[in-house]
């Protein structure tokens, strides 16, 4: 069997699911969730088939191509619908379809009581299709289709509970901010077109080395802008926190494990371009480092469990972007962290969802406390995810994050020191805020109270369809890192695509690991001192200036609001006024003056036929004169 032809099926199956579920009508309400899950599992199975097939080939033959049809054939412009499946894409396919299937399964339980769940699964399938298209495309334009497709799915899913104005606003915000990033991607594609005459991966990346650095820098910066939008990096990070308005499985799948990592994929995929543009690379690392700290700080201050996790996501993607900015030293680790993060962050979100499920959708951690007794499975899986993310030795996060910190130092020079220290600092803060989440949720005294209607939550363990995915993801969070790292398996797997460079680290690997352990302990103990030893107040204290700013996403939203939203409102309002008074005023003014003039001229029409006759004769005389003169000339 020719395995290449299976690639299209990866995208087609969930797409079919989306089409059937969204157009199918009420008849499918009951089978919808199962159908959606099934069609999400199809790409996973096909992915596994392709994966085993790929493992059987030599490293050079592993890249598969499938050309479906010519998409936009225009003079000098050739866009195809064609797929490329190499090791990098394969990694993503397995991650996306695997985690995706688990989260579909989880959603069956989580969305059980929602009357619009058929649609929910349709959207999820749409997301899977778009995401798979994104990673399978063999050219940037098709990637762009997937890129916006996931944006659309994200929009639909964040705003799934549309009756809540906050959800609708959050969805719109996510889409708009993403659009700004998309603008970067489309400009990048245009630049590629004018530079290379094409935007397919192979010719572009093949010719990139011979191209001027200026062009490459421009393309790289535009790609970075795109990545910032999609991956919630500073300065386009503001949508991610609000995106938590969506159902929790959505947060787990889209806003933790897969979609938000698309930026990392884009940068790693375009590695050759960045390699040729050190300035762009520097910008990438700076963005990564800043976001890493930004997200971490925000995560420390949030009392909403999902928003705290969202801050964490931002921060972890900051790590990945940082790694991707390091060039060939970091590409592999960026992807590795991406995969392990996919496991443990999805697990953490599902755990958070499970907690909310048992707590009447309460999200404020100050109203939790002591839940470990009520939800043991959730506690254990969440706990394993927690240990993985803070980088507890032996668990996934340890391997991947440690490598990134190492690589940051290996960058060399002052940059290397700065980046390395930032990454270390980030690790400390990560340990701090995740411990905080853990303690506030599962330890201490119970702090929940009956709500206004007198319904006290009855915390309980979630159903099987929810716990099984959590358990599977926990397994992944525990073992994936180790599995990848033993014998540098993952590095060898990806090397043909991303290439790898060890760099010269000024510090030995052991030193870095030691330092990481130290900051880890510091972070955990600080959190324990603050939240474990003292009871947690159920109403948030006012806090320091930094805390308050962090609660408000470090004032970035306020900045956006004042500068962009208000400014935009004023601009549009004044433009509406200008259009009405000035542009239209000129037109209406012309009309009015013509009207006034005719009012005057009207008086010449005195009604006497003889007057008219005079003008007729006069006119005739003038015409004759004119004719005679013309003749004469």
């Amino acid at each position, binding site marked *: 069997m020719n395995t290449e032809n299976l690639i299209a099926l990866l995208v087609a199956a969930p797409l079919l699911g989306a089409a059937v579920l*969204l157009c199918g009508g009420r008849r499918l309400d009951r089978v919808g969730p199962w159908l959606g899950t099934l069609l999400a599992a199809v790409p996973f199975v096909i992915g596994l088939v392709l994966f085993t097939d790929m493992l059987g080939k030599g490293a050079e033959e592993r890249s598969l191509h499938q050309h479906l*049809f010519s*998409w*936009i*054939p*225009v*003079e*000098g*412009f050739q866009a195809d*619908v064609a797929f490329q499946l190499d090791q990098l894409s394969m990694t993503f396919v397995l991650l996306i379809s695997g985690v995706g299937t688990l989260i579909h399964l989880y959603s069956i339980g989580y969305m059980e009581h929602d009357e619009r769940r058929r649609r929910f699964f349709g959207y999820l399938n749409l997301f899977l299709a778009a995401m798979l298209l994104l990673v399978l495309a063999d050219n940037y*334009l098709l990637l*762009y*289709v997937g*890129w*916006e*497709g996931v944006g*659309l799915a994200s929009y639909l899913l964040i*705003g799934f509970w*549309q*009756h*809540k*104005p906050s*959800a*609708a*606003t959050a*969805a*719109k915000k996510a*889409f*708009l901010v993403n*659009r*700004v990033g*998309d*603008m970067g991607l*489309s*400009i990048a*594609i*245009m*630049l590629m*077109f*004018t*530079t*290379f*005459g*094409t935007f397919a991966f192979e010719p572009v990346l093949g*010719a990139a080395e*011979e*191209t*001027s650095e200026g062009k490459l820098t421009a393309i790289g910066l535009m790609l970075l802008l795109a990545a910032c939008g999609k991956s919630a990096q500073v300065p386009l990070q503001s949508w991610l926190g609000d995106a938590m308005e969506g159902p929790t499985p959505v947060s787990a799948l889209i806003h933790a494990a897969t979609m938000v990592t698309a930026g990392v994929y884009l940068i790693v995929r375009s590695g050759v371009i960045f390699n040729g543009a050190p300035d762009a690379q520097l910008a990438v690392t700076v963005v990564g480092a800043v976001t890493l700290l930004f997200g971490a700080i925000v995560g420390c201050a949030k009392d909403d469990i999902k928003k705290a996790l969202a801050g964490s996501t931002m921060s972890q993607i900051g790590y990945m972007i940082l790694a991707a900015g390091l060039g060939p030293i970091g590409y592999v680790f960026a992807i590795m962290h991406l995969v392990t993060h996919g496991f443990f962050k999805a697990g953490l979100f599902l755990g958070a969802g499970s907690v909310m499920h048992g707590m009447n959708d309460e999200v404020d951690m100050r109203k939790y406390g002591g839940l470990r007794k009520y939800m043991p499975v959730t506690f254990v899986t969440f706990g394993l995810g927690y240990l993985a993310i803070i980088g507890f030795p032996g668990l996934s996060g340890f391997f991947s994050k440690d490598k990134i910190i190492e690589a940051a130092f290996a960058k060399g020079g002052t940059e290397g020191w700065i980046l390395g220290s930032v990454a270390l600092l980030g690790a400390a803060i990560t340990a701090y805020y995740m411990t905080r989440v853990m303690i506030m949720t599962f330890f201490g005294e119970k702090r929940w109270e009956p709500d206004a209607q007198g319904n006290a939550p009855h915390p309980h363990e979630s159903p099987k369809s929810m716990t099984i995915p959590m358990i599977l993801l926990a397994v992944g969070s525990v073992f994936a890192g180790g599995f990848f790292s033993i014998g540098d398996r993952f590095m060898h797997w990806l090397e043909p695509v991303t290439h790898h460079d060890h760099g010269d680290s000024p510090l030995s690997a052991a030193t870095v690991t030691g330092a990481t352990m130290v900051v880890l302990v510091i972070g955990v103990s600080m959190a324990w001192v603050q939240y474990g030893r003292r009871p947690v107040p159920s109403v948030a204290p006012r806090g320091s200036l930094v805390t308050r700013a962090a609660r408000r996403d470090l004032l970035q939203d306020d900045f956006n609001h004042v500068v962009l939203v208000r400014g*935009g409102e004023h*601009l*549009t*309002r004044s*433009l*509406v006024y200008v*259009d009405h008074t000035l*542009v*239209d005023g*000129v*037109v209406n003014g012309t*009309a009015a003056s013509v009207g006034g003039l005719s009012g005057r001229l009207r008086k010449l029409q005195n009604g006497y036929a003889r007057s008219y006759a005079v003008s007729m004769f006069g006119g005739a005389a003038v015409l004759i004169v004119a004719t005679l003169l013309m003749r004469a000339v």
Partner: protein
Amino acid sequence: MSFPLLTATAALPAVGAIATAAVPAARRAAAKWLALFFSLATLVLAVVVLVRFDPDGDRYQLTESRAWIADFGVRYELGVDGIGVALIALTALLIPFIILAGWHDADPLETKSSRWRPTQGFFALILAVEAMVIISFEATDVFLFYIFFEAMLIPMYFLIGGFGDRAHAGSDEKASAQRSYAAVKFLLYNLVGGLIMLAAVIGLYVVAGNFSLQEIAEARANGSLDMATNTERLLFLGFFFAFAVKAPLWPLHTWLPNAMGEATAPVAVLITAVVDKVGTFAMLRFCLQLFPEASKWATPVILVLALISIIYGALLAVGQRDIKRLVAYASISHFGFIILGIFAMTSQGQSGATLYMVNHGLSTAALMLVAGFLISRRGSRLIADYGGVQKVAPVLAGTFLVGGLATLSLPGLAPFVSEFLVLVGVFARYPAVGIIATLGIVLAALYTLVLYQRTMTGPVKPEVSAMPDLRVRELAVVAPLIALLIGLGVYPKPLTELVNPAVKHTMSDVQKKDPQPEVEAAK
């Protein structure tokens, strides 16, 4: 002489218009079915044209030529290139939907006067517009084109002024005053443009001695017809002005929001999706072919105006409170893209602009018609009067969203293809212009999503709580449009292949070559 297919395509709706108008007052329903029948028959003929047209054949095909006014060299000359065929197909395709969508728009409010026959008039006027638009797309004689370009205004005037939107905030009197203001504004604006064009048409005759597009263009190309630089520029401006009003280009746009706001939704679609296309089509066919040098001379100014249109239209769309005016400003923004693509003078830009004309027709039709259905349910055009419709009428909201997504050029839907081609085409020659125009896609997302959010999401307003979902007739209008949007977004190849040769001809007319990619240029 073979069967005059093009004449038949244009004449059939004209016959339909007469037949519909002649239906007796009492048989109102019959008039509707008759109009629908004729529009569908025209669609069949348009499909025949599409099939008979060979993209790789001569530039103009299915040509017809008859003497008409011999003394002035005016001939009845028809012929289509790929662009014309695409737009004829679009027109013929949209009219049945427009008729179907406006099925009840012209039912008389009370049956007190049996001689009052608005329904017949409404559908007859729509068919009349169709006939004139189609013949404008076919005419290769400048004078013939001019006549129908202008004559179109008459039925449009009555459609705007006579059949207003019943969903009006104010009193009936105020509504009718605003309506006639809009209609008169539409008429005067376009008449002024048309008059200036008439002067240019006469000027062209004086210079060239005949009106035949092909002959003049040929003579221009092989150098046997030499125009003084200033003459050519003046003539170009005369033509361009009329087309810019029709298109409409900033700052000649202010008639469109009034006209679209006051007209019924199907008529609004007719204005923006069909009639306005004649303007942009004519820029491509007449301005570039007849006055290549002047077109190049004017390009910088036109590009700036088009850019202003894009950004300005989008910003004003954000600031609108009225759904239909919002769509109108969005259209102004889109027309900016089309004009940008035409005057970028690259293959991608012009192909993109042509596709854009078709795709914009489809996307605006989808969005506007659904908006019309929405408005007819609630009886208000104000965005603030809606909220939570998604909950009570999910299919309506869903189709509205798809229409909106098409308007913001989401990849996978047809408008994306054309918008991206335009942007690439512009960027290849004028990078700065391309980048600024790209801002338009962010603003498009803004106004579309704000509209969707305010009308469809949030808590259900009491006034909309009993709103019925789309009916079968309405679904029959929207579903094919959406299918086409998706179909042409995924597989636009048939359309591009239809258009490419025509674009190649135009590019050789203006004697411009696509900019070389840097890598190849270096070699």
